[in-house]
């Protein structure tokens, strides 16, 4: 019996508490953006729609910290308003895509058989086309309205959650540890809590962050090509289109919505570890 102690438990308790710098930075940025989005233009107390044709394309000043656009509207207020729109739409679509996607994925893996086949076929049908193409077409049913945009984004994004959850859950449920737990008498609730959630939770978080980034990009892309949200709504993509003709007079203006968009997407990606092996 003494011999056993000579075989060391090599991996001592080295729980990783240290997070990579990029992740911390990403989290901080996301938190900052969240505050900006919750506060909106109210943070600086300026109406994003108020025009002032006497002060168009003005450089940053005390009254307008980021300058004004071609109609004399305050850039900072408009960018904040855009953050509000993009991030709330992103959060909404993460929820409406993530919850059903995850639940259906587990259902599919748990029951298998026809349930799995039907749900799988439905997911394949959505994946038959590039996501943005589908969003574009749905947006075209009622151009300029945000709800078709939102519906389109949710409809394309749920598949990610579904496919990931289904695949991982299948592997986890086929694991000897689940069989052992079943033999030991653990019910479905405990199986989900002890086996499934710890196993797929972190992956879902990654999908959610990347999905939110996709949603933000899609909203801006569609706004930019004039088939999504439309002027005079303050939306980053719309603002880019509006300001593009004035790049020579005021190059700093067009770069502002571009920077906002890039920082948002970057922050979301970094918060889950950036481009680690997928």
């Amino acid at each position, binding site marked *: 019996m003494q011999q056993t102690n000579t075989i060391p438990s090599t991996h001592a308790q080295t729980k990783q508490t240290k997070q990579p710098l990029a992740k911390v930075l990403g989290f901080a940025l996301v938190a900052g953006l969240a505050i900006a989005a919750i506060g909106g233009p109210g943070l600086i107390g300026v109406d994003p729609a108020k025009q002032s044709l006497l002060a168009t394309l003005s450089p940053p000043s005390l009254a307008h910290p980021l300058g004004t656009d071609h109609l004399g509207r305050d850039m900072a207020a408009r960018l904040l308003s855009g953050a509000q729109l993009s991030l709330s739409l992103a959060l909404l679509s993460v929820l409406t895509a993530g919850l059903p996607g995850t639940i259906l994925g587990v259902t599919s893996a748990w029951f298998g058989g026809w349930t799995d086949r039907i749900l799988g076929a439905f997911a394949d049908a959505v994946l*038959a*086309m*590039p996501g943005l193409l589908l969003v574009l*077409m749905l947006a075209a049913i009622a151009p300029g309205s945000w709800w078709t945009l939102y519906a389109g984004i949710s409809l394309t994004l749920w598949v990610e959650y579904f496919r990931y959850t289904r695949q991982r859950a299948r592997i986890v449920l086929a694991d000897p540890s689940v069989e052992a737990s079943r033999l030991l008498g653990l019910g479905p609730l405990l199986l989900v809590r002890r086996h499934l959630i710890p196993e797929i939770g972190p992956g879902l978080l990654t999908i959610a962050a990347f999905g939110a980034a996709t949603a933000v*990009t899609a909203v*801006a892309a569609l706004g930019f090509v004039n088939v999504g949200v439309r002027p005079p709504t303050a939306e980053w993509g719309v603002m880019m289109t509006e300001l593009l003709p004035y790049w020579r007079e005021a190059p700093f203006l067009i770069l502002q919505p571009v920077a906002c968009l890039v920082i948002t*997407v970057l922050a979301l990606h970094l918060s889950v570890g950036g481009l680690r092996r997928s």
Partner: protein
Amino acid sequence: MAHYFKSVLTVLAARGLQAIIVAVIVGIVSFAMMQALPGDAAFRIAAGRYGYDMMDAAAAEAVRLELGLDAPWFVQLWGWLGQLAQFDLGNSLVYGTPVVDEIATQLGYSLLLAGGAIVASLMIALPMGVATGLNPDSLLDRICMGLSVFLRAVPAFALGVVLVLVFAVQLKLFPVAGFRGIENLILPSFTLGIGLAAVSNRVVRDAVVDAMNSDWQLFARTKGLSARLTLARHVLRNAALPVVTYVGVQLAYLIEGVVIVETVFAWPGIGHALVHAIFGRDIAMVQGTALTLGLLYVALNLCVDLACRGIDPRERAV
């Protein structure tokens, strides 16, 4: 060999089914678009078919009777899809010309752009990925990692705008937009190519790292093959497999990018036409262009499937 053809047939069947699904989805959504339009549907369809000049109330009435526009919506939908099944895409509601003719000229431009984007992305990703993969965790590797994370976060249209401002407007190296010659191809191709390469260079790198760390790589060396021979005979082929598979994953990004980037650069392709048609509510054109892009996606996927089978003998008979 018989097994090989059988596996190819399986691929063809799966992609064929996907093509049908694409057509049905495009048809249904277009139909919904038509229903959502304000005004009289028969009038618009007649205009779509015969052009605004050639149509009148009688023609509209004929259409109403023929299509049974008084029938319940699902009967109408069935008729709509039936037309699609006969490859009848109708006429543009704006120009009056047959949609098929419009698409025929645009498709070439879009294929040119898609091809240019893939070439540009491989030109960036392959050397970068192999160099970092052979030297993992080096300074070069870390720089490329940071660059990849950053570029991945830049949406294609924003990158396009920046590239236009810098290279076309400021430096005047390339034309701003439109299509007059091959010089117009470079900026949009690289706009898309950089976005694709931002991720795929890491995939190449990981594939090379995996291959270099594999037991079979070491065994190829210890059985006496030189590093160069091992790379050429074993490593590259094994690393190519995930890379080609990943090109398949990126096709969705490519098609989406084509739509947006064509608009940024006023490229006379299908994506530009689609956006234009949505804006102008030219439903026949929306349906035709979306269908073509969807089918293009399926066709490119098919090419990737077949390429994978070419590289990986396990997919064929064993």
